[in-house]
């Protein structure tokens, strides 16, 4: 028989080990991508790689310029956030504050279900429903566009944002709900003065999660944005985000060719952009909430 103390020790060692494994996987991913992409920077300078205007890996005169592709990813992600965020906040307010108690659970499971729909299904609906709609509304020859990507992606990140925001709104209000009710404060006053300011951390977390999800989404986006490596000037232009580039090209690039390393380089840039954005969010958060306080 193990004593309780011993059991505790075994347990502690186990969870510590698991954490180390998980951390290690992360380190390994970054290490591997960095290792595989270093080669491209011997051929192309980092500046040309990031600011070059043309991605022609297999041309007679190969060029590795990611700029239109990075712009594609950034415009797609910010576009999706811009329309998904207000909807997410609104829905979260409704779920956590407005709707009758007995609906809450059902609505929450519905949004969770939305998060579980495979991305290829969203993409498929995008191709069949959204693209023809854009073609007829805007008189385009083809509906593949930044706009189609933004719409599909916005729908896809919403459930995650709703879930996080609604949760934080519920926890913000809980301590005050009795007092507010007994004071006869109106629901809308409470939402404006208590819920929204109190839940900003949740909203912020929602934005962070939404951004990461949006930047990494591949399949659904690839099906509706046209994958043309151009810098978008209007919402109806086609784009090629980094994830599409990787998914479309990695299968056919001979291993250890310049093209192969170029694709890993693109993956590395995506990872760095994501880390930078997350870091920026973290700094902003610290600034707003004052030093240290969580």
């Amino acid at each position, binding site marked *: 028989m193990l004593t309780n103390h011993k059991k505790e020790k075994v347990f502690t060692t186990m969870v*510590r*080990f698991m954490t*180390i*494994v998980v*951390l*290690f996987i992360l*380190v*390994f991913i970054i290490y591997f991508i960095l290792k595989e992409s270093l080669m491209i920077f011997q051929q192309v300078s980092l500046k040309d790689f990031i600011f070059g205007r*043309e991605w*022609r*890996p*297999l*041309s*007679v005169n190969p060029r590795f310029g990611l700029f*239109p592709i990075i712009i594609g990813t950034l415009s797609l992600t910010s576009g999706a956030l811009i329309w998904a965020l207000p909807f997410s906040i609104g829905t979260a307010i409704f779920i956590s504050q407005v709707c009758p108690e007995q609906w809450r659970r059902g609505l929450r499971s519905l949004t969770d279900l939305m998060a579980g729909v495979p991305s290829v299904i969203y993409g498929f609906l995008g*191709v069949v429903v959204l693209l*023809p709609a854009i*073609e007829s509304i805007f008189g*385009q*020859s*083809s509906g*593949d566009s930044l706009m189609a990507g933004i719409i599909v992606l916005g729908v896809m990140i919403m459930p995650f944002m709703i879930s996080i925001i609604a949760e934080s709104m519920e926890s913000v209000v809980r301590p005050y709900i009795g007092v507010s009710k007994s004071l006869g404060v109106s629901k809308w006053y409470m939402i404006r003065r208590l819920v929204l300011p109190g839940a900003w951390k949740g909203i912020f977390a929602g934005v962070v999660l939404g951004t990461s999800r949006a930047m990494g989404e591949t399949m659904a986006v*690839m*099906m509706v944005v*046209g*994958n*043309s*490596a*151009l810098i978008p000037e209007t919402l109806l232009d*086609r784009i*090629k985000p980094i994830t*599409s580039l990787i*998914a*479309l*090209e990695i*299968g*056919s*690039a*001979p*291993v250890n*060719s310049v*093209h192969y390393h170029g694709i890993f380089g693109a993956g590395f840039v995506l990872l760095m952009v994501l880390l930078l954005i997350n870091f920026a969010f973290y700094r902003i958060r610290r600034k707003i909430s004052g030093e240290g306080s969580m």
Partner: protein
Amino acid sequence: MYRKIGISMIFLLLFVVLLVGCGDGNETSDFDGELKLTGSSTLAPTISTIADAFAEEYGTWDQVDESLPEEEISISVATGGSSAGAKAILDGTAHIGMMARNAKDEEMDAMENYQEVKIGIDALLMAVNQENGLGKLKQDLTKEEVRRIFSGEQSLWSEVSGDLPEEEIVLLVRDVGGGAHGVFQDVIMEDEDVTEKAIEVPSMSGLVERLIGNEGAIGYASFGVAEQYRDDLVAFSIDGIEPSEENIISGDYPLSRPLNLVWDGEASTEMQVFIDYIESEAGREIIAEMGFLPME
């Protein structure tokens, strides 16, 4: 102190995994009943269908050839593109690679003794929707005409012919690295690049669906897929050569790609018997059913 232990554990793990990462690979010497193929997603469905028929007919390997073990026939077919096929052979993770293009020199050089067998041909047809004006206007395109359209030199249908509407030409292509695009690039575009405005579609069936759904689009469709939608599409002849079966097999029709199986060194018995089966009447029938042209 725990921190120190934690850090040293991380390094230890890193070291172990690096060792493991370097060590794997060449362990295909003794056969355990599972034959592995990797490569082109164009070829994979055909090969797995043939593999099913093969396993059903024989059951265990010793039924095919006495020298083989009495193991159940198991043939795994993985996809990842033609290049992944060549890579899998180099890494030793597959016995046979499937490639929907000719191997590149660097791929052949990397192997000790490159071997290939051509099991069929896939042709690309330049096609438009039945409703498209160009299809009604003519049946033939020259390489030069196709190149002008795909390089972006002509971006409106009215620039191709005065009788056509002043609408954007929607160009549909597969990903630039794919086997299908490689053939198109070599045969039609040569040194020129396809314009960046072209829409890259992730799969051939997706490309043909788009073609059927969009009057203003032009693209290349695989022979097999185009056959399935014969009534919805108009396929052009190239430089006066029709994309007919005879012309494709004889090699006169320019836009075609070989379907190859590749391996390194001497084929083992289990590989040889399966390749023989693919080349048999039964195998060739399946290849034709899947929309490709089997070799004679």
